[in-house]
Structures are given as C-alpha cells and as structure tokens.
C-alpha cells in the first residue's frame, strides 16, 4: 500500500514537469497546445539512446534532452504559433503524432515498436538511484521539480511573464505596446517544451525502458487536464492537479478493486471531472495566480511617503465610487 502510494507520487512528479511546461504555454501565454506527449517522448528517447548506445550518464543526458525538446518546440512553434485556439491545438496534436510515428518507425535509432530496454540506472556520485528504492527516486524528482518550479516562478514574475500574460489577454494590444508577439510565443513554447522534456528523462530513468506506446495522445490530454483541473496560470495548482489526476488513475489498484473497475473507467471519471469543473469552477481548483506587485508598491509608497497612499492598500470600489460621484461621471 505505502509502496503503491509512493509509486503514485513518483508518477505525479513526472506528470508535474509536463504540467509546469503546459502551464507556461497554456496558462500564461494562452496557447492551446496538445503536444506534451511529443516533448515527453523526445526527452525519454534522448535519455534512453544516449545512455544505452553512447553510455552517457543520466545527468548529462538531461540538458541534451531539454535542449532537444526546446529546439523541436521552436521548430514546431515558428510555423504554427500564428494560429490561434483550436487551429493551434490541431497543429500541435499533429506534431505529437509525427514524433510518435517517427519513433515507431525509425528502427535503426529507436528500435521501433520494441522500444529500448535495459537502460542503466541513474547514479548519483556512485550511488545508484534504483527505481526499487522509491524514496531515493522520489527525492531526486522532488529536488529537480523544486528547482524547476522556482525558476519558472521567477520567470513569470518578471516583465517577461507580464508580457506573456499580456499576449494571453490580447495579442493585438500587446503588439501595440511594442511586444514582439511571435518571438515571445516561440520562447514560451520552447521553455515549456524543455521543461516537459525533463519528464521524459525521469520516465526513462524510472521505468528503465521506453517504447512508443507510452507516448500516446492520451498523455497530452491528461496533462492538459491537470492544468485545467488545478488552475491555469498557477504553477502550484497544476502540480496539485497532476497529483489528483494520478491519484484517480490508480485509485482502483490502490483500494484493491482493479478487478472490479475496468481501467477504462478512469477516462470516464476524467471526463466527468472536467465537465463538473467547467460548470462549477471554470478557473480550476486554486484559480489563476494574481500578479504580485506588492514589493514595488511598498517601495513606491515609501518613496512617495506623503501618506497619500499610506494605509490605502485595500481601497477599492467605495473610494472609486466616491470619485465617480464627485465628478458626476459614473
């Protein structure tokens, strides 16, 4: 039972990486992408091939996998990011399928449908991070996830993040204040893709084998679900979403009813959850994270310390209402 719970947590972390990437792309920049599975596959196969054929260590394959995923993100981004909404979703979906089909058929490199087996274990200064000792692997994942989360939070807190949000809100208006919309979209897509690639490295390091069957369309859908369920534009929320989705996926096994509840039932449950969420809480469990200007605001108020702004942090409608009445202009 505990072991099984650890397994869920390990998969949660793997999916959390993809959710973080998807959140930057969809939650912050507002691009509906459906190719998380594609980047996941590229990450996995990069690690698998470099470790088995070239005897690289797992650690050195991670940057390569990130770069390769990001590069492919740019390649798909340049022609397709002018598309919006549904059209972009279809184009990116096609990309994920291309990746899977290439992997499935490029026998010389990927060993086709057989996949690649016997990937060496991750070693950490001579210490093997064995998938059988789940605590070690989980620790590795949590540390990497924390670093990734921290860097992404920094990114969206900066002006770059503000520009991404502006693009999400209104592309034309963003361009009219000097934002190079295409460039920002491509960079956001590339970073999101790179982060999703890390999930692939971990998957390869945990399962110790890769095969094209693990990178199907359903993966992209599940990742999108984690983002919508947790809350778009909130990194903490999407990781929570990843946990919930994984927990539901494995619930039948966890409570020992896997013989009664068919595996397909989880897809029905996902669908049901999404419908219910869309009706009652479209912003997700935690909702969007508001931009935090409190430091700059405090600095400004202090510098302009004429008390004009002191203690007025929570002024809002009353005061603006008063202003409207004064000027007779509601």
């Amino acid at each position: 039972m505990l072991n099984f719970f650890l397994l869920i947590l390990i998969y949660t972390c793997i999916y959390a990486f993809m959710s973080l990437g998807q959140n930057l792309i969809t939650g912050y920049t507002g691009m509906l992408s459906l190719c998380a599975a594609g980047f996941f596959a590229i990450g996995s196969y990069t690690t698998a091939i470099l470790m088995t054929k070239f005897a690289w260590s797992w650690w050195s394959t991670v940057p390569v996998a990130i770069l390769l995923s990001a590069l492919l993100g740019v390649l798909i981004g340049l022609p397709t990011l002018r598309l919006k909404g549904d059209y972009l979703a279809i184009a990116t979906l096609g990309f994920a399928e291309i990746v899977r089909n290439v992997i499935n058929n490029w026998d010389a490199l990927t060993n086709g449908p057989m996949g690649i087996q016997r990937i060496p274990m991750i070693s950490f200064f001579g210490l093997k991070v064995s998938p059988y000792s789940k605590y070690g692997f989980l620790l590795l994942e949590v540390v990497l996830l924390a670093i990734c989360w921290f860097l992404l939070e920094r990114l969206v807190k900066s002006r770059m993040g503000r520009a991404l949000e502006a693009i999400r809100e209104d592309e034309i208006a963003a361009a009219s204040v000097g934002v190079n919309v295409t460039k920002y979209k491509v960079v956001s897509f590339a970073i999101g893709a790179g982060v999703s690639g890390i999930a692939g490295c971990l998957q390869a390091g945990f399962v110790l084998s890769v095969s094209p069957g693990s990178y199907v369309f359903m993966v992209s859908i599940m990742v999108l679900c984690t983002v919508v369920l947790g809350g778009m534009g909130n990194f903490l929320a999407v990781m929570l979403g990843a946990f919930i989705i994984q927990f539901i996926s494995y619930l039948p096994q966890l409570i020992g009813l896997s013989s009664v509840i068919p595996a397909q039932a989880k897809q029905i449950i996902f669908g049901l959850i999404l419908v219910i969420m869309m009706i009652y809480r479209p912003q997700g469990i935690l909702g969007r994270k508001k931009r935090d200007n409190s430091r700059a605001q405090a600095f400004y108020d202090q510098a302009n310390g004429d008390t004009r702004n002191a203690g007025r942090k929570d002024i809002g409608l009353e005061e603006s209402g008063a202003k409207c009445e004064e000027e007779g202009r509601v």
Partner: protein
Amino acid sequence: MSMLETKALTREFGGIIAVNRVDFNVERNMITGLIGPNGAGKTTLFNNITGLDVPSSGKVFFEGRDITGLPSNKVCRLGIARTFQNIRLFKDLSVIDNVMMGRHFHTGSLRNRTLQAVLSYFQVEKEECEEYEAAMKWLEFFGLENLRNDSAGSLPYGYQRELEIARALATEPKLLFLDEPAAGMNPQETDSLMETIRRIRDLGVTVVLIEHDMKLVMSICDNITVLNYGQKIAQGTPSVIQSDPAVIEAYLGTDDDEEDF
C-alpha cells in the same frame, strides 16, 4: 515637413477600396482630427499607419522615414502609440500592470529579460520598482492611482478608456492615435476628455483622433481631415471644414443617405 505623411495610401479588401489614394498629413504638436461618416475608412487608415494592417499600395512616412508595412510592435517602438475603437485592455491584469506593459520595450531585450529574470533577482526587483514608479506617474495623470490594484476589466467604461490612453502614453510616444475616444461617453465625460487631450498635447505629444462627436472635434482640433467612401474630401481648420460644401453633402446627404449628423 510634416511629422507623419501618407502618400496615395490605398487599402483594398477584395473589390472594396476601403482607403483610396489618401494623402494624410499630421503636423507636429497639433491635434489633428479625422472625421467622416461610418465606413469611410478612418479606422482602416489608422490600422495601415500603425502596422495592424498592410496597405495595398502607397507609402507611410514618419519623421521622414518610410514605415510602410512595419509590424505594429516596431511602429510602436518608433514612437507611435494608439488606442482602439473597441477598448483593448489586458482585462485580467491589474490597472498598474496594464500601464507597466506600456513600459515594456523601454526595459531591454527579450534575451536579457529572460536571463535576468532567472539569474539576477535584485536587478529585476530594482527595475520593477522603477517601472512601477513610471507607470504610477501616468495613473496620476488620469487620476486613476487609487484603482491601481483593481483588474482592468472591472473598471467602469470611462475609466477603461482613460486607462487605455494611459497605457499608450506609457510607451512615451511622439504621436498618439486615438480611435473614437469619446464613444459611449456622456457630455461631462466628453468635456473632461477634451481637457485631457489638451493636457496630452501640452506634454509635447502630437495627437490624432477619430471622432464622431462634432463638438469635441471642432473645439479641440487644429486641423481636420474628412474622409468619405475611402477618399479624402477635405482638409483644413475647423471653420474651413464646417463651411465646406463637400463635407456638408457627405454628412447631410443629398437624397436617401442615412448618416445623421
């Protein structure tokens, strides 16, 4: 030399010529009005100048430089800002964030921004404070400073118009295009808007506006250009325009024209 000139600017949409060989001039430090009945091509002309749309033929010169067909983000960087007929704010962002977006390109390139965001915490914080202060200056200009943390989409309509102008001004433009700024405003709001536009001119910003409110146009514009069916039919000072027979015909019509004045 005019600050901005279009030379025989034409924009066709299929068989329809929305803007037909228009020569439009904007003189520095003046308020220029662009009027005409609905569908005359005023907004299309704006869009072609500000890079939202590419002209079919003709040229646009800004301070002697050919800017024809430049994308809008580059046009903005040269010092031309604009507002939109149907307000385009970043609705989910706060008021102050909207104005800070106007400061966007004053703060270095994308690469620097990305690396800096991740690597140098204190630099980012420091610059955010500077940008915040610059943005607050514009909110104070419009008296919106107390609403800074409200989300832009929740503001009353008149404030949204002002906020959009504040965001445009935050880009520190030399030339500001306002597309129907008084649309949907009551007379008091329109009066205060007129005052605001004069204050913007006094800052040294050249203003061009599309407007249907003739009282506003006639009282604040130094120079007016009239379009009808995509063609320029008149240009001159308000008094000249008011007595121009072609303008009177375009607005009042000769037979079954529906345009009301």
